[in-house]
């Protein structure tokens, strides 16, 4: 961690104005032949398309792309030869906004990136700024953070399961998972007033004390949801149609994952046991006893099994945490106006979708010089092309679902 | 024993004294439909329209088979010809670019010769029918259905199992050879369309 003032030119503030000509609106209609797209379109050596080849567009509006994602597919009949993702339809300039907000004011913006698991986003950002400030949240705050983050992991995985099953054609698990997710959202609403974009944590700890009956409700939830996970598994895990749709579909090896930077359940399902909660523990995770499930083949079915197992492990963590919340303050001694010393920090956590990292550069003022978010969905989406080569079109939708992307995070 | 006819034949069975009215009507209607469908096949520009006219022709021929007391053949005609072969025709028409053909001349330049050949063939058929009428007295169309209910019932009853008996009896060899031919055709199609064996 250097302590010098960052060099010129890395922030959008310093870039000359006439360089920023290419607006996002130009990107989708750009001439693909000039890009270094690996779809090999229109090169002089090859004719544009063979007789059977076809370029089709899974457009931004599509029920199965989980947001506004545009995927251009090059097909040979029905087989996929290559894909190209066009993103940016949900770009809101969050990182640029971060340069013009104080550290505390930026906290709510962070929730809106991965809007499905807002608590994890908040946790990552708050911990990153705390590291920059060199303060540590008190133990009670850490436990509350762990409980809420694991509840959020559970909710995120439930939403993933419902939508993924719906894409493959099973329409019933969606309703079951959403019904059970309601209980988690009720707890969030009672805690911090919001269901989805929770803004649950503050820099230095938590603002809100746990409400009366919090532990009891969380314990009731644990008892309520454990048989529900069995219900989801009963519907899908041994179903022959589910197996045929997900086994050996979208295989990616562990080496490829590491090379691309893919993290999260996708990496773990390919066989590599890497979980930031164990590898670089943060926020009281080192005090809990839980396993990190891994898969073998790296196909869609393994990713499904890994996420189901992670749900159960989350329940385990929550149970241990809720049984032993220490007493004490919930907020560390943090100055009212947060002015971190000059420097930069990169801190990452294990969000439900993968490694969520925050790189914050501070120049000593009340607003960060640069906030760069390393979203797991953005990096994982790069693996899409590798996973769908040789698959059929119907599998593309299954694979997009299994990577578990949220466009708010991909585009920011 | 259940005669299979539509409500046409029963009308005559209920009142045996009446001359059959509907049968010639249905024959001329179905035959006219078949001929009209055939003419439309070659006259329409759009290939899909032609295929649909061919389906109309085939269904008219089905009706004619029914009138000839051959219900099994009629059903097979629908099943195989109209429902299977015409479907494949439509697949090919729809998947292959035939827009170019629509812009070509509709009729060949040699059409007078074709018309003359068709008329000659028609004259041949008519003369064969007229001259040979004496050879097949009991197969005449003018069979009065009102008095031959037993004959009709015999014809219809066991139509299918009589065919089965023929297929297993005198015509076994021919049937097996025909199925072998079809098998060869299927194998040929599979081999030609597979990219690598």
């Amino acid at each position, binding site marked *: 961690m250097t302590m010098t003032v960052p060099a010129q030119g890395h922030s959008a503030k310093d870039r000359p104005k006439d360089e920023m000509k290419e607006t996002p609106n130009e990107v989708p209609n750009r001439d693909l032949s000039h890009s270094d797209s690996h779809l090999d379109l229109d090169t002089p050596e090859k004719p544009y398309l063979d007789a059977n080849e076809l370029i089709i567009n899974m457009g931004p509006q599509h029920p199965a792309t989980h947001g506004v994602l545009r995927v251009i597919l090059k097909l040979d009949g029905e087989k996929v030869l290559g894909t190209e993702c066009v993103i940016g339809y949900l770009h809101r300039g969050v990182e640029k906004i971060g340069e013009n907000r104080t550290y505390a004011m930026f906290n709510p913006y962070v929730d809106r990136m991965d809007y499905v698991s807002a608590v994890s986003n908040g946790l990552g950002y708050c911990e990153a700024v705390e590291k920059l400030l060199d303060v540590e949240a008190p133990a009670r705050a850490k436990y509350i953070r762990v409980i809420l983050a694991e509840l959020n992991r559970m909710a995120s995985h439930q939403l993933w399961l419902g939508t993924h099953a719906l894409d493959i054609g*099973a329409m019933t698990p969606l309703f079951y998972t959403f019904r059970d997710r309601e209980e988690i959202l009720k707890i969030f609403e009672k805690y911090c007033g919001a269901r989805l974009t929770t803004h649950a944590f503050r820099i230095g700890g938590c603002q809100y004390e746990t409400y009366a009956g919090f532990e009891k409700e969380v314990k009731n939830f644990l008892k309520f949801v454990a048989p529900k996970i069995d219900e989801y598994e009963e519907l899908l895990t041994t179903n022959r149609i589910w197996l045929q749709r997900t086994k050996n579909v979208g295989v990616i090896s562990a080496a490829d994952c590491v090379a691309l930077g893919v993290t999260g359940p996708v990496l773990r399902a390919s066989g590599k046991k890497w979980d930031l909660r164990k590898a670089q523990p943060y926020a009281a995770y080192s005090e809990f006893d839980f396993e990190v499930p891994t898969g073998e083949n790296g196909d869609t079915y393994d990713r499904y099994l890994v996420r189901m197992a992670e749900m159960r492990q989350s329940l385990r963590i929550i149970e241990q945490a809720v049984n032993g919340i220490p007493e004490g303050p919930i907020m560390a001694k943090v100055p009212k106006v947060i002015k971190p010393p000059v420097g930069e920090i990169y801190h990452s956590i294990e969000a439900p979708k993968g490694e969520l990292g925050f790189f914050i550069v501070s120049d000593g003022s009340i607003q960060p010089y640069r906030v760069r978010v390393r979203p797991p969905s953005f990096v994982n989406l790069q693996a899409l092309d590798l996973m769908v080569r040789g698959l059929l079109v119907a599998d593309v939708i299954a694979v997009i679902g299994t990577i578990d992307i949220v466009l708010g995070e991909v585009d920011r | 024993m*259940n005669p299979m006819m539509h409500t046409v034949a029963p009308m005559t069975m209920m009142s045996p004294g009446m001359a059959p009215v509907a049968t010639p009507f249905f024959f001329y209607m179905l035959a006219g439909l078949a001929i009209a469908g055939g003419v439309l096949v070659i006259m329409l520009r759009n290939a899909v329209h032609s295929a649909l006219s061919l389906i109309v022709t085939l269904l008219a021929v089905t009706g004619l088979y029914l009138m000839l007391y051959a219900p099994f053949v009629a059903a097979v005609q629908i099943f195989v010809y*109209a429902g299977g072969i015409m479907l494949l025709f439509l697949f090919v028409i729809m998947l292959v670019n035939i827009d170019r053909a629509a812009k070509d001349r509709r009729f060949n330049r040699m059409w007078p010769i074709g018309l003359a050949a068709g008329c000659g063939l028609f004259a041949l058929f008519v003369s064969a029918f007229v001259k040979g009428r004496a050879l097949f007295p009991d197969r005449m169309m003018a069979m009065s259905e009102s008095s031959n209910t037993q004959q009709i019932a015999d014809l219809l009853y066991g139509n*299918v199992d009589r065919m089965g008996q023929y297929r297993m009896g005198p015509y076994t060899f021919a049937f097996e050879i025909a199925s072998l031919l079809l098998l060869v055709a299927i194998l040929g199609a599979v081999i030609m369309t597979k990219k690598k064996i």
Partner: protein
Amino acid sequence: MPNFITSYFGSTLTPGAAGNQFWALVYVFVIFTGVSVAVMAMNWLERKALAHFQIRLGPMRVGPHGLLQPIADAIKLALKEDIIPSEADQFIFWVAPLIGLLAAFTVYTVIPFGPSEAVSDMNIGILFMLGVSSIGVLGIVVAGWASNSHYPLIGALRSSAQMVSYEVAMGLAVVSAVLMTSMNEKGTGTLSMIGIVQAQQQQGIWFIFKFFPLGFIAFAIFAIAMIAETNRAPFDMAEAESELTAGYHTEYSGLRWSLFMLAEYAAMIAVSSIAITVWLGGWMRPFPNLLRAPAWGFIFSLFPGLTFAGLAAIAVIGTIRMPSHSFFKVQRMGLAGFAAVLGLIAFLLLVLAVAGRSPDASVAARFNAGIGYVYWFVLKIAVFMYLFIWYRATWPRYRFDQLMRVGWKVLLPISLGVLILTAIAGVVVS
């Protein structure tokens, strides 16, 4: 009463066979309205049952518990703007739903609801049914073509390829059951639908249980193939919402689209009735041989009335449980009226059942028997419809190549095997 009306009551022939145009027309009319009402009821049942599977309620507002929802949908579809793509082939666009509809409805001429309750009994009945169903495929192909758009065409071709593939397996499964009809003293079977049921009656066993498990496997093959034939889940890739190809009826709106849905549901009922006739004993009541005593006959003849009484009771409970708010007054009255109508039908049926017991009431007995036949047939159809909905709610859908693989590589060899084994078993047993 004129002879042509009463002659039917005493005969054992179908109206078509006996040349009775009046009753044939009556049957055609009844079947037409009955199938239309059944399709509307099926629409309601599908929405309600799917909703309950997914822990929600389904339509509740239009009529008590959504009972008038299908009517509202029909009115809405009829009043919608009829959009025809400008580049589409006008004539074919118009004729495509008609082909499907004609094929779906013509099949009902041979479906026997009783030994003489059918429009006509062709001696090639089952072949006619399978053949006319294959004409419906043409309607789908033509509909996809008429839309003049890439995706509906691909979807239509896929749909039709799927339907044609599964017709083969269906046909072979039916052939093995027809083979079973010939295992009597005379040694000849029959293709006529009524003949098949009568063969089951005469041999004293439903064909699903004959040469167990061969009859059961044949029935299972047909049950799977008929789901694929009607493009229902889990074989509905060609018309699923989240796929790229949007299905053959994309460009159709309003009444034309509803004709496609009508044809689809009518085809579902038609193929279910093939399965019921050929394997499940058609119109026969359960346990025709095990429980042979006349007392059992009387008990089973009470079932129609008891079913309607049960439905009336459910409606009454629904009325009682409706919230006693003034907003629900109309719904409560409607449901109570519906319960009253059901109760009245139940009462009439029970009276008829009791009256038909006495030996000198021939007309009542005839009515009673006829109603009994129709009731058991329709009950079996209802079970199949529920199964269709259940499958849709539970299972994901097959990918298209997996679907074709199942049809050709799994069902076809098994059905061939069942056919050969059935023939061997028949020879061995006789």
